[in-house]
């Protein structure tokens, strides 16, 4: 336990929250996109909301 050097607070924060923040921003872009326009904006929505859907399948079913 004591062998590892202590990480600084900001780097520990980003270690935990960088990925959730990126996924959150992508999801919100997806939620808003289809509200603003049609066609290409709809497709952007499917990608933005598809990303978390694919990630949960990936992390739930991968072997490790």
């Amino acid at each position, binding site marked *: 336990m004591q062998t590892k050097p202590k990480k600084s*607070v900001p780097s*520990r*924060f980003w*270690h*935990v*929250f*960088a*990925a*959730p923040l990126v*996924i*959150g*921003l992508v*999801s*919100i872009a997806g*939620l808003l*996109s*289809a*509200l*603003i*326009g*049609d066609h290409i*904006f*709809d497709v952007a*929505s*499917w990608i933005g*909301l*598809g990303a*978390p*859907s694919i*990630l*949960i399948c*990936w*992390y*739930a079913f991968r072997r*490790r």
Partner: protein
Amino acid sequence: MLTQKTIKGWYLVHKWTSLVCTVFLLMLCITGLPLIFHEEIDDLIGAHPVAINLPADTPLTSLDNIVKSALAARPGFVPQFMSFDDHGEPIVYMGMGLTPTSQGTDAHFDAFDARTAEPLAMHPFNEGVMYFIFKLHVDMFAGLPGELFLGFMGLLFVIAIVSGVVIYGPFMRKLDFGTVRKTKSTRIKWLDLHNMLGVIILAWTIVVGFTGVINTLAIPILQLWQYDQLAEMVAPYKDKPALSSFSSIQVAHDVALKAAPEMKISFIAFPETAFSSKHHYAVFMEGATPLTSKLLKPALIDAETGSLTDMRSMPWYTTALFISQPLHFGDYGGMPMKILWAVLDIATIFVLGSGLYLWLGRRRSSLPARLAELQSGAAEPVSA
């Protein structure tokens, strides 16, 4: 850095808000699943009226003929609302009531062909399995108190999500993002799944949860608008006597459309309903883009002279309500969006279910043991 004490505080907030709202949230997620597809289900069971098969260039009849036809079809009833088909079908819907403000079993919704004014067969919307699911989801058959209660549960859900994110921090300190340890113990597997699923669908659950809360306030929000902006718009007519007959609704329709030619008409409220005045038709206009189609702009038409008396954009609080509706329903991005909405809804069910499982499976473990589990990322098994 969070201190021991604050971690314990946030853990207890997460535990108690979750415990109170989980059963209701499970009900909402399960009933919400078929509601995502209510249009497709309605089509499948033939709940939508079908327009008569006529040549495509058949002209539309006057809307006044449709009102006559609606009155003939329901003797003793008065017209409350007229609305138009969302998908551009030549169908006009009439809301009819025993009085202009009747609701529930004293009000009906009828469909008419827009070219012949003939009544069209239509399943009553307030019957059947889908209506049961809808009522359960909206107010659990308890009216406004039921709606507000579910709104409060939604608020607890949002607090549970926020506190969950806070305690996700110390738990994940020594773990990689998305870690799911499947071989250690069932509890650790479900704890990891709970964290992984919860944090990935975070933005969606907060948005759908919070917009759901706003939707539960629909009735008070619209009442506020009636006492605020609508009252102000009709103030000059306050002391005028009620009309014995109304001017043409077709004229009201055309006058409103001329005043805002870039807009479409969503619905028209007849005089004496809660959405108009004793002296006015209120023609609710909507924009043409996905966003502006949710923002209504009422045009008030004098029901004696048929002239436009006022037209204003609605205030910020109704705008908030109208934008919350699509963001809660997921009906603004075609079928792929509905499917993704369903996937994320099912993921939410897993987060709720795993949370409940973790609480039920806490058994002999003490609060300090669970806090240690949380802070070590479950490196040491709980209740050893």
